[in-house]
């Protein structure tokens, strides 16, 4: 059975193969200077990094929330057939998963508010270096902040989902178990919050613009 990661493996392998072939070609044809990491980092636009950060932040959070919701939801449906009393109480697990998506939206809004237009042609010579490095710093901060919140919410959502599924099935057998397992879920959802906190810290120092 193909695992869910097969397309990821295929893409990564092809990218690695392309990179290796190109490296050999450049090395053997004395074009090694083309591998210029400095040029890459300097000339890619901070806008690209910033928007990638925003996009990854919100989308990975939503993937995490969705994963959690379907994992818990299908168990609630199954367990609710013979034990209808669990239906309402276990919606709390779904709410914990949903909170993860809300963290993603909040961070995406916060990060995108930091993003402003800058125009390098309006800069004077004296301030060019300082403004340029400040804008690059802003771009990378927003990218990092988006990754932080995205990945931590992804795994938080998966975690809360799997625990919520167990909570629903255990509740269907013995209703005193639900509150105990809810405590495990609360710890699970705390890790998503950690991601949000660090992400905010990363993004508050980001200053984009002409000043």
């Amino acid at each position, binding site marked *: *059975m193909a695992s*869910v990661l097969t397309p990821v493996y295929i893409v990564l392998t092809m990218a690695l193969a392309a990179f290796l072939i190109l490296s050999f070609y450049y090395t053997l044809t004395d074009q090694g200077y083309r591998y210029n990491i400095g040029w890459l980092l300097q000339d890619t636009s901070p806008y690209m990094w910033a928007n990638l950060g925003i996009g990854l932040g919100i989308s990975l959070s939503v993937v995490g929330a969705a*994963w959690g919701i*379907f*994992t818990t*939801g*299908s*168990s*609630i*449906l*199954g*367990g*609710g*057939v*013979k*034990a209808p009393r669990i239906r309402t109480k276990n919606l709390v697990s779904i709410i914990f998963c949903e909170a993860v998506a809300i963290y993603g939206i909040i961070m995406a809004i916060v990060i995108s508010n930091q993003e402003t237009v800058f125009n390098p042609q309006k800069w004077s010579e004296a301030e060019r270096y300082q403004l340029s490095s400040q804008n690059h710093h802003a771009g990378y901060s927003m990218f990092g902040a988006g990754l932080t919140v995205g990945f931590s919410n992804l795994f938080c959502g*998966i975690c809360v989902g*799997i625990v919520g*599924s*167990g909570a*629903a*099935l255990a509740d*269907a*057998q013995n209703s005193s178990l639900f509150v105990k397992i809810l405590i495990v879920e609360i710890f699970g959802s705390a890790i998503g919050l950690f991601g949000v906190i660090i992400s905010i810290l990363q993004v508050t120092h980001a200053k984009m613009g002409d000043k």
Partner: protein
Amino acid sequence: MNSLNFNIDFGYLEGLVRGFKSGIVKQADYLNLMQCETLDDLKLHLQSTDYGNFLSNEPSPLQVSIIDDKIREKLVIEFEHMRTQSVVPLSTFLDYITYGYMIDNIVLLITGTLHQHTISELIPKCHPLGSFEQMEALSIASTLLELYNAVLVDTPLAPYFIDCISEQDIDELNIEIIRNTLYRAYLEDFYKFCQTLGSTTADYMSEVLAFEADRRAITITINSFGTELTKDDRATLFPRCGKLFPEGHSALVRADDYEHVRAVAEFYSEYRILFEESGNNPTEKTLEDKFFEHEVMLMKKAFLEQFHFGIFYAYVKLKEQENRNIVWIAECVAQRHQTRIDGYIPIF
């Protein structure tokens, strides 16, 4: 198939089967059932369990065979519901569970035809979970080769017949050999299939099917003492999986009586305990009962883990054991023979 993806296709059915499992008759209900004086009392007590009013349409002088049929019907309805809701690979897994019943049905129909019963008498005795199309056509042929070409090649059991097709006419002795050969091929196939299903299912089902294979090996050995089954034939009937394979099997082939078999089982700690606690006195449990107890213990373990298929197999086996228990108690009540009424195997 792991905890991340399992719930996409199977989460609902897992929740459902755990709900069914919580409806299995408990120890307190068995105590109530044992107090019954008549079968109508039994029916009344069963109404308060998950069975509900399943006997309400039956005419008044209740018989144990009717109770047996209705209990089985409830399991069949639940199983069929799960089977229709499932997708590959769970549907394949559930199909494998039914192949065991199919083998029993085929052997029942062939034996019944040998004894000149009509097909319409035999079909109601077949287990519904093991029914397949063209079941009625099994009465037409007298050698296994004809039967295979006509009917059996279209069933899912076709690959299991490879070892036992022959031109000889079917008779009493070789029908049992056919049954055991088929079951051996089925167990080995099921074992191989479970290995492809992910680590939790593979681990659990390996243990369960190993016990099933060992139990069959021991039972075949004990039942073959005093019959015409040669030792070489006996060796070909043991499934090639389980703890007893291969050294235990070669020792069992050489065994000549019960004490030899017990000596072989001494090397395996779980089976040694089963042999020690069983015996042939009226007060002790028989070896068969101890095997059933061990099976129930293994089946209960399935529900301790989430995200695997073993719970479906365990549910079917536990419902069968519950069926046997209730029918045992019903027989004791109907015959007013209260001494061995507590000879059922407690489940929960």
